[in-house]
């Protein structure tokens, strides 16, 4: 295996939230203590419900905002707190594909200028070279040459997502962060875009940070899986281990809640009670304990840290026992 292109250690992001005029501000942990490594050609699937910190993680990795604690490196260069020329250099190595292709493409720009924009800002290529690069990338993502001069509204959702993917790849990044890239698309189109992402990963040797709430998709594309709950990783490990035998009760609940077509694939019916608690005032100890069917008094007293259990990392006091 080659050197990791993305290494994160203890990434944390907190926000200070105003509660009201005369109340003190509180610290909100949007993301706490996330560590992982990602090698070229590999995919890390990040799974969790809304508000679990998935998108905050994407914002940190794409250098949109700096982490409050922890560090990470992109392509061997320390990225946390990078500034100036280093930051500009790093931004080229990581690009993002957003969830909603209807909102992430500028409706006033033609495909041509959407694709050339990253080159204009980051490279010294002349217009002819830029056009050649844009046209080549269009062919790679399955867009026809005549699409070059069209506006985004002239395309279907699947084609727009292809444009978004092409734009992300224009600078030949090493890491692509995809934040729910399929959830705005129809089923038959999802399969097309998923296939495209896998093909591009192989031909450009890309590392994907693939954020999704759809476990079936993650199971298909990811090599490793990171399950998060309320900003903290609860289970992290190789895809096959986690899907074969999920050890954290939350991972199990997620798997059991995913609707399945094949009766044989359905897990034991298990409906999780309640909703995720507010991150402003999280429960003491393990954040999941209020919804957990196995919670014991210890769970309220101390927060379980990630520990090696059964070949992966699990943050649960009862991991391997229930």
């Amino acid at each position, binding site marked *: 295996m080659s050197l990791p292109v993305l290494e994160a250690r203890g990434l944390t992001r907190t926000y200070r939230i105003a509660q009201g005029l005369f109340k003190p501000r509180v610290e909100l942990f949007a993301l706490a203590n996330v560590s992982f490594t990602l090698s070229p050609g590999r995919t890390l699937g990040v799974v969790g*419900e809304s508000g679990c910190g998935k998108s905050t993680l994407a914002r940190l990795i794409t250098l949109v905002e700096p982490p409050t604690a922890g560090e990470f490196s992109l392509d061997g260069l320390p990225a946390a707190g990078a500034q100036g020329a280093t930051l500009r250099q790093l931004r080229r190595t990581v690009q993002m594909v957003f969830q909603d292709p209807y909102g992430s493409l500028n409706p006033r720009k033609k495909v041509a200028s959407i694709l050339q924009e990253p080159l204009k800002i980051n490279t010294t290529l002349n217009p002819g070279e830029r056009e050649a690069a844009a046209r080549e990338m269009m062919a790679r993502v399955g867009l026809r040459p005549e699409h070059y001069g069209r506006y985004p509204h002239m395309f279907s959702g699947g084609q727009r997502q292809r444009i978004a993917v092409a734009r992300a790849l224009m600078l030949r990044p090493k890491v692509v962060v995809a934040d729910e890239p399929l959830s705005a698309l129809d089923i038959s*189109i999802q399969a097309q875009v998923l296939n495209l992402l*896998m093909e591009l990963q192989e031909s450009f040797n890309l590392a994907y940070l693939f954020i999704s709430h759809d476990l*079936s998709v993650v199971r*298909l594309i990811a090599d490793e899986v990171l399950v998060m709950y309320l900003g903290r990783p609860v289970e992290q490990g190789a895809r096959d281990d986690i899907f074969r035998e999920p050890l954290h009760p939350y991972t199990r609940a997620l798997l*059991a*809640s995913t609707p399945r077509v094949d009766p044989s694939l359905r897990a034991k019916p298990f409906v999780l009670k309640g909703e995720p608690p507010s991150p402003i005032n999280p429960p003491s100890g393990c954040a999941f304990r209020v919804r957990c069917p196995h919670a014991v008094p210890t769970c309220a007293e101390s927060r379980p840290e990630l520990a090696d259990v059964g070949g992966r990392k699990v943050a649960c006091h009862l991991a391997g026992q229930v």
Partner: protein
Amino acid sequence: MSDAVSLLEIDNLTVTFAGGAFRAVDGLSLTVEEGEVLGIVGESGCGKSVAMLATLGLIGYPGRVSASTLRLAGQDLLEISPRQRRRILGKEVAMVFQEPMSSLNPCFTVGYQIMETLRTHEGGTRKELRNRTVELLQQVGIPSPEKRLRAFPHQLSGGMNQRVMIAMAIACNPRLLIADEPTTALDVTIQKQILELLLNLQRERGMAMVLITHNMGVVAESAHRVAVMYAGQVVELQPSGSLFNAPRHPYTAALLNSLPERGAPVAALGARPRLPSISGLVPGQFDRPGGCLFHPRCVLAHTRCTLENPALETVDAKGVRCHTPLTGPLAGVWAEATSGQPAAVIPEGQ
């Protein structure tokens, strides 16, 4: 088809927009029996929501609705006056919409909005209405309902708002509940809760339910019968069990094959399989093909498909709109598809 009168009968329903140029729903015929869960699946733009809205008379200008029969519990919905229709909507038949955040009125408390339905249809004193509303909130699993009566939609989570929508829909004990993508905007664990809630209410009250969704897993887990729609037409109608094991329409088969769920077992072998995807796009207003609407994307299409649109033929309560419907179990289809072939299947009589 039973001899008894169905709860909802739709025959030859057509909805057109743009002066007849665009057929959103094209000759749709469906029945819903008392106490059954009918799933309607299809991709966006296939007309599944529009069909149900048209049934309830909720399609306004410039849409045009026509049908041979449109009957709810013996009442002809084509003939009735707007006043009579308002008496039925919310009472005999109720609807739960996709986005709870935008379908509730942000200016009124949720308690007020539920009471409004009750007041319109059943009446009663303030106290009675209030008690009934608290009871409803309890039934849909909202904790401390007395307090929640005074909450505004923005103070509740998406899941809680959807529960409020459901409380509003079941307030007058409807005989038919139409749920239009009730779980799409929600997180998986909440999605499961809402689905369980809907199914429990359906069983307890013996309501009929029409579940409109694009999620194959959701229908497979809850519906008794499933109608698959494509470009405004029902292409397949089958009991849920046999539909997912042995789809007869190539579109259904291809759709099921392209589910990531079905690709996962192969992925576990270490390979990076490609999902067998359906090439091309759903036809729109200007590129509606002649003949079978699916033929440009169908791997089995032959000359007849390009000329003649097949009728929905029903045998043993299983309907399929195809000249050469598939036979044989899906397992075989999938095995072939993974061996690098397109989703090839064995057509009947060839």
